[in-house]
């Protein structure tokens, strides 16, 4: 797109700025249509909040049952695990709010051939595929997860410093990136199999273990889900930062490093997959 300029030239800067504002405007428009759509099904909106609350309650009930039988899992105490469950749910809900529906819709776009239309739009296709819809009920559930996290932090008498707090926030964002990158890769598989209903199932199975304390695992399983698929880092590391449980900086370095690596792999896989796209309808 851009003509050859020295990188610091004025034109280049303005083109970058205009690009950001352009994408910002597109995203604002997508938000507006999402809100409009959501508001036309108000009852459904409330029901989805209840569904997610029921599942979140279920996870908390499980924590309750486990700690009715024991006082610790490894070194994790009950309120630390509640904090972990809350954080895991928070990251997942924020991910769900921005991306999940769009990732699962990808296979539908491929199957019906609607992908044609998106490929023709003069914007980055991955951007528009990933952000088309915003899932508003998830924000309410994320807020509920924050309440649980705050309560657990109170029970643990945590007084996080500003650095801990910022670190926690930043690592949650990296966690979000891991969720998005892995799920988008799973969704890109639909360019091969077309009927990829199992994608959501796979996603939930995979991130199911993100809310479990990392010390519950050993051996190959732990290695795979820490270093290959960093699911065990996604919410464990931020919670360790917040709850003074960090043993070495290796944990958060690993999360950041693997987050970036998976984002790159996911982008590569997406480009590789799109090349396989053959329109279905026309």
């Amino acid at each position: 797109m851009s003509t050859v300029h020295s990188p610091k030239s004025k034109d280049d800067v303005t083109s970058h700025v205009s690009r950001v504002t352009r994408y910002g405007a597109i995203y604002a428009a997508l938000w507006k249509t999402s809100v409009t759509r959501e508001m036309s099904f108000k009852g459904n909106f409330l029901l989805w909040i209840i569904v997610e609350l029921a599942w979140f309650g279920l996870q908390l009930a499980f924590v309750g049952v486990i700690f009715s039988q024991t006082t610790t899992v490894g070194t994790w105490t009950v309120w630390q695990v509640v904090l972990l469950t809350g954080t895991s749910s928070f990251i997942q809900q924020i991910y769900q709010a921005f991306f999940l529906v769009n990732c699962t819709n990808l296979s539908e776009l491929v199957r019906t051939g609607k992908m044609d239309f998106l490929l023709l739009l003069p914007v980055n296709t991955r951007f528009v595929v990933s952000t088309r819809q915003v899932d508003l009920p998830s924000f309410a559930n994320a807020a509920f997860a924050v309440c649980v996290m705050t309560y657990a932090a109170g029970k643990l008498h945590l007084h996080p410093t500003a650095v801990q707090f910022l670190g926690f926030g930043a690592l949650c964002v990296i966690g979000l990136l891991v969720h998005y990158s892995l799920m988008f890769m799973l969704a890109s598989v639909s360019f091969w199999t077309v009927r990829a209903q199992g994608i959501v199932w796979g996603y939930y199975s995979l991130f199911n273990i993100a809310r479990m304390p990392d010390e519950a695992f050993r051996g190959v399983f732990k290695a795979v889900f820490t270093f290959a698929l960093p699911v065990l880092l996604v919410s464990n590391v931020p919670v360790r930062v917040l709850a003074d449980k960090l043993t070495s900086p290796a944990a958060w370095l690993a999360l950041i490093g693997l987050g970036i690596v998976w984002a790159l792999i996911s982008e590569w896989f997406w480009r590789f997959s799109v090349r396989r796209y053959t329109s279905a309808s026309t």
Partner: protein
Amino acid sequence: MKKYWHVIGIGIQNNLTYRVNYLARTLFSFIPLFAMLSLWRTIYAGKGQGSALGGYTQAQMIFYYLLVAVVDVLTAVNEDDWQIAADIREGNISQFLLKPIDYLWYRLCLFFSGRIAFIAMACVPLAVFIFCFRDYVVWPAGGAALPAFVISLVLTALLQFFISYTMAMLAFWLLEISTFIFILFAFEYLASGHLFPLDLLPPALQQVLFCTPFPSMLYVPIGIYMGKIVGTGIGLGLLVQSLWLLLAYALARFAWRRGIKKYAAFGG
């Protein structure tokens, strides 16, 4: 009767087109299952050897979850509820009102064929998974336990189906029923013993749960197999399952009859 055999045959063929999907689902489900087993092993390790939690030794606890996986493969509904709801919403049931075929039995046949196809794809990976945990495998508790377990399994499968069928009947009145299905599934997941053995709950709560149909949807066959339900308890368990089954069946028939009166045959 012959026509229903045809339905089963066609159903198996249809379902086998999703074989990769079934296989992927089974393999993916091993991740949380293995995680759960690791979690309990860690808890037992912290408790010291030979300790029992809620009457479960470590081996029994591990085996409980393996058995949940097996019973789940054998009895759980796959996408039957979504399909029935879609049939109603899209007007596909109109043809069944004209044909000499009962939609409920038709769906039951499809449920069976779905299970057969799923079992065909899941049995090998599941067997391998269980083989890896063969040290924990427990044999049925006593001679009566095995036949009772099998009967209980059949009742569980039928109950699973009829409850899903009844839920799907909501599609006559509502456009979107997935939220209701998910809420019910959340309750079932907890109260049927999917997430943990119900014996871990406080006794008062257990008694409340045993007044609901949920334990009949999973826990009863497992409890019988593992000797948590013994003696007259076995007969009682099967009786309770049968009663819930009859109730679910009656409700399914009732909901269908009411629904048909309201049915407007969109599209179909």
